[in-house]
């Protein structure tokens, strides 16, 4: 009997989690006429017109591409810099590493709004306003505390003796990093990469402030600023939302083991 209660509870949790997304999916498939009226909850005559409209009429395809480039670029950069730093903090025992880690964690608490104005001025002054490069650098920089923290935890999980063995077997510190530590920290790289990618893909404030046109504008900005002076095109917004969400949701579900590793790494052990 308690089992039944548990099943019901879990079903409720799953329904609660998925309902808004499912509703948006259903909405995106309803023709305009059906959008205005309820009760038809399910689309009576499902249509792809909203998807077509958004990809053809609006520059949504460009936005998706920009998001992809910015997120992928930031992920690559954050992984390289983060794993190098994490390795050093975990295995090379530099002086002041406890303080460094504490500082890194503190940096991740920074409210983005606090740095938006100076970054805007800096980016404009260097001619990088409305460029993807600016986004890649800013996203990587903001994801770096997380990346460094996670990679430090994951490298700590690799036994010290493997590093010592690699050094004695003829590797320099960098050689040991590349040939032994990195291969063994692959799950950590995947977990960190996923978290950084999702963060970068979803990021809004910097994209809003540092871009101005489809040259660099990303999907979240597109979704938020959907034209709606008189008629709010809910169908297209729904379609855009589904398209905007699909990549990150699919990644999260496909790699959920790794995502969970990343989310809980260090937080539980402290």
């Amino acid at each position: 009997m308690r089992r039944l209660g548990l099943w019901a509870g879990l079903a409720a949790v799953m329904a609660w989690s998925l309902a808004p997304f499912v509703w948006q999916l259903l909405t995106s498939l309803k023709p305009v006429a059906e959008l205005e009226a309820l009760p038809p909850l399910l689309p009576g005559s499902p249509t792809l017109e909203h998807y077509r409209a958004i990809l053809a009429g609006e520059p949504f395809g460009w936005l998706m591409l920009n998001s992809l480039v910015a997120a992928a670029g930031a992920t690559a950069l954050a992984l390289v810099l983060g794993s190098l730093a994490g390795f050093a903090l975990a295995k090379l025992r530099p002086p002041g590493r406890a303080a460094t880690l504490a500082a890194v964690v503190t940096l991740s608490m920074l409210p983005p709004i606090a740095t938006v104005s100076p970054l805007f001025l800096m980016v404009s002054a260097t001619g990088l306003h409305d460029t993807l490069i600016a986004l890649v650098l800013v996203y990587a920089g903001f994801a770096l505390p997380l990346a460094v923290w996670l990679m430090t935890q994951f490298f700590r999980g690799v036994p010290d003796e493997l590093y010592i063995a690699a050094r004695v077997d003829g590797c320099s510190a960098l050689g040991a990093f590349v040939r032994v530590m990195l291969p063994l920290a692959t799950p950590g790289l995947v977990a960190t990469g996923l978290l950084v990618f999702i963060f970068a893909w979803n990021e809004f404030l910097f994209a809003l402030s540092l871009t101005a046109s489809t040259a660099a504008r990303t999907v979240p900005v597109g979704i938020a600023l959907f034209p709606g002076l008189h008629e709010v095109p809910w169908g297209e917004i729904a379609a855009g939302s589904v398209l905007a969400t699909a990549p990150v949701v699919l990644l999260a579900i496909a790699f959920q083991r790794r995502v969970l590793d990343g989310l809980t790494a260090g937080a539980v052990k402290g």
Partner: protein
Amino acid sequence: MKAARFESAPFLAPAAALLAVVTAVPMAYVVWLSLEVRTPFRAPAFVGLDNYLRLASDGRFWNALWNTAYFTAASVALELVLGLAVALAVARAGRTRALVYGAILVPWAIPTVVSARMWEWMYNPETGVLNYLLGARVNWLGDPTWALHAAIAMDVWKSTPFVALLLLAGLQGIPRDLYRAAATDGASAWTAFVRVTLPLLMPVILVAAVFRTIDALRVFDAVYVLTGGGPANGTETLSIYAYKVLFQTLDFGYGSALAVAMLAVAAAATLAYARLLREGAA
């Protein structure tokens, strides 16, 4: 072997450089900006603490601070409670665990602005499914009584998964033997929960609370899309206010002062939690 002391420098330098450029330098710069008057069509001028004096008497600032505090307190409290409930349920899930994990990761993975748009659609007074299911005609986002709570509800929906996952990991770290010992000692499920689970879970609860508090304090995306700060600044949080001053009024000086105020709030919260954590560990 002095060389060994610095062998870590080249590994740390690139990350440090990027962090300096993107984080440290802007942080210093924003403090400098807050001491200036900097608007378009005017040369920047140093005015010392004038912006902060203006801030102290700015009713809209205090309103934003109150909204932010209320939003933070309510969402963090709800997320902790619901997150714990979800974690306790999922901990017993057994074979369906993968399925449940996948489902609860969805809200976390969705971009905040997208989920805000989803909820905006659900909150729609005429065509929204929420009013339909409740048989009501509430103007969720346009009514000052409801707007902030509507935003809180969306944030809770989106962020509970993260809390639940952290707490779940914490639960899995509690040795089963403790529960067996409690059962042998005649403890009921509730007593076991209060006497065994909660105390051992406290460090993780605090960590989750810190993360969520910091995130809630800097809420921007959700409010921007749902209400834009309205109605009548009823949902205007610190970030929204600062953004408007910066990018709509283009008053970089005062906007930076607001941003620095936000920094101070975040720092205060972090310090408070740090002390709690240290006391907890001691």
